């Protein structure tokens, strides 16, 4: 029996030693970053090619190599389709020796991609997805969720409005996973703050005409109409709300607003609307410096997803350097040990569940008269501390 134990111990030590040898250094002599984004669809502007640019900037600023090995970037269009996204990720891992996948926009695609990545023990660096599932019910030791999530949006935008006496809410919700998640979490926030939800309509993704829903919202007698949608759906529903006079009688709250959407709206319609954002280019000198460099390359001011993309990529590369390897577990450990701190991540920590908690901004959209340039779109109303904005960590997701 004793001999048996000894043998086992020896085997275990050998295995540990071999994996240790494999783990040190850079696998395949290259760090390969896969950027999976929607390139030509509704979410192309909020991440898309801009996210690829952000990764390129991070790699260049890092020096192009890590531990003496080159850093390579590959990118692909997921077309907002989970099957396309997960197939691409599988191919990257199995054939192309990709070490980490980032970008990750539509929550449905991210859900599929992170499953494949976790099975392969590869890290997912999520920049622009909204769902909080990746660090809660679908949490994984290999998920890192950076910019924002639905909980931060609801806590940031909804809570102060209910506290200010806007108790009765009506939702126009995008009828898919993201919209449902956003409406669900916002409803919880409203009810726990003493408000009530008087009704909701689920509008199919990509609805062109929202007038019917706006009429229903008008008839509901709500104090606030919450738009639990994104991108074109958000722009179209807000335009219609303004046209039908809803914005004059009722508060309309956009729950997920990217700077790209704000730029697509007539200031007369959007002025005064509050939104929660993970980043704004014009916050201080640090954000302005980076954003100017980004705009010079990409042509448009960075969205919060694109700024987060840079910050996250930098943090990942720094972790490889500190760990002395690109092996996923070691890199994740270093990423969580080190506090992210740059122009994007303020007062930030990367929690054990993979959630990056940082200061969020409550902004309001400026009216035409107070805009000094076409990109001057937000007033920063308030800085929301990360632990107020984000959902607490679940014990089952506490990956050490």
């Amino acid at each position, binding site marked *: 029996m004793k001999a048996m134990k000894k043998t086992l111990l020896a085997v275990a030590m050998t295995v540990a030693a071999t994996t240790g040898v494999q783990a040190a250094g850079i696998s395949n002599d290259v760090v390969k970053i896969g950027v999976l984004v929607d390139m*030509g669809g509704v979410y*192309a502007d909020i991440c898309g090619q801009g996210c690829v640019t952000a990764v390129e900037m991070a790699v260049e600023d890092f020096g192009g190599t890590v531990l003496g090995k080159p850093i390579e970037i590959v990118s692909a269009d997921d077309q907002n389709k989970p099957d396309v996204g997960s197939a691409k990720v599988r191919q990257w891992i199995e054939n192309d020796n990709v070490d980490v996948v980032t970008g990750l926009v539509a929550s449905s695609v991210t859900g599929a991609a992170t499953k494949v990545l976790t099975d392969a023990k590869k890290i997912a660096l999520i920049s622009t997805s909204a769902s909080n599932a990746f660090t809660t019910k679908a949490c994984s030791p290999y998920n890192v969720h950076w910019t924002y999530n639905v909980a931060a949006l609801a806590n940031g935008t909804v809570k102060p409005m209910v506290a200010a006496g806007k108790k009765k809410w009506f939702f126009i919700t995008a*009828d898919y996973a993201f919209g449902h998640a956003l409406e669900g979490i916002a409803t919880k926030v409203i009810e726990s703050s003493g408000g009530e939800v008087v009704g909701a309509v689920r509008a199919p993704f990509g609805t062109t005409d929202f007038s019917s829903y706006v009429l229903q919202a008008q008839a509901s007698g709500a104090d606030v109409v919450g738009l639990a949608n994104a*991108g074109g759906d958000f722009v179209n529903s807000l335009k219609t709300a303004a046209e039908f006079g809803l914005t004059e009688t009722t508060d309309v709250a956009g729950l997920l607003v990217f700077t790209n959407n704000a730029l*697509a709206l*007539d200031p*007369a319609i959007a002025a005064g609307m509050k939104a929660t954002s993970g980043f704004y280019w014009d916050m201080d000198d640090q954000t302005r410096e980076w954003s100017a460099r980004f705009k010079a390359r990409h042509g*448009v001011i960075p969205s919060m997803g694109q700024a987060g993309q840079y910050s996250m990529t930098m943090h990942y590369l720094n972790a490889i350097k500190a760990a002395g390897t690109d092996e996923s577990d070691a890199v994740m450990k270093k990423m969580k040990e080190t506090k992210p701190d740059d122009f994007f991540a303020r007062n930030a920590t990367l929690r054990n569940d993979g959630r990056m908690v940082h200061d969020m901004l409550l902004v309001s959209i400026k009216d035409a008269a107070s805009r000094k340039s076409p990109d001057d779109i937000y007033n920063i109303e308030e800085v929301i501390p990360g632990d107020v904005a984000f959902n607490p960590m679940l014990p089952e997701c506490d990956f050490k």
Partner: protein
Amino acid sequence: MATIFGINLFALSGQLLVGLINGSFYALLSLGLAIIFGLLKIINFAQGAMYMLGAFFAWMALNYMGINYWWALILVPIAIGLLAILMERFLVRPIANEDHLYSLLLTFGIALVLQGAFTHIYGSSGLPYQIPDELKGGTKLPFMYLPNYRAWIIVSSLVVCFSTWWVIEKTKLGAYLRAGTENPQLMQGFGINVPLITTLTFGFGVALAGFAGVLAAPVYSVSPDMGSNILIVVFAIVVIGGMGSIGGAILTGLMMGVVEGLTKFFYPEASTTVIFLFMVIVLLVKPAGLFGKEA
């Protein structure tokens, strides 16, 4: 407030009116398709892209050339029509005698190229376009607030639709047109320039989409995918109305707007599906469509 079966009648009237407004959009777009298919037997999948182009041209005209909405409403359809004429002459005509599938694939390809190019240049977030000052504001009806611009949409598109129908069905020019497509050789024998008629018809059918695009610019997001979103629905409407039936396309467009509007009220989740459900039922019961002639 008056209710029936627990449904608020005021709210319902509002939904009916909104449905009718959307229906007039559908009517305008499906009319263009029906003309092109009915008279030329071309399945024009680029119609949605031309609608998108109409909205973008209106935006460009305003931002690059200072041309206002009202001029755009006249000039943009003409520009789109000219573009369509070039497209017909150099792309569609060389394959005119092939199977319908060829023109379908060609126009589908053109649509993809246009959509891709505009996404590349202008991004996918959309561009802002204001409602013209003359049409801002609205009227308070007993059951709803009707924005003036929506009233303008319904009036202008109905006028365009019914004048088109009248020209094709009731005038001598329309008779030439219909005869020219029925029996081109015979008409050419009478000294009518049939290829010219074909080209002009194609141009006009597509120009209708451009007109709809300008109408849509102030109320919907001007974005590259606005055409592909609406095109499939419009095709379903043409099929329900009876491929090529001009009056059928107009009436079905209005009807489907109302059906969709009511669905948005009673069961919004199904609002993008209901028209296709309707199409399936119509095809099963009356394969030629509601207003189509049995082959």
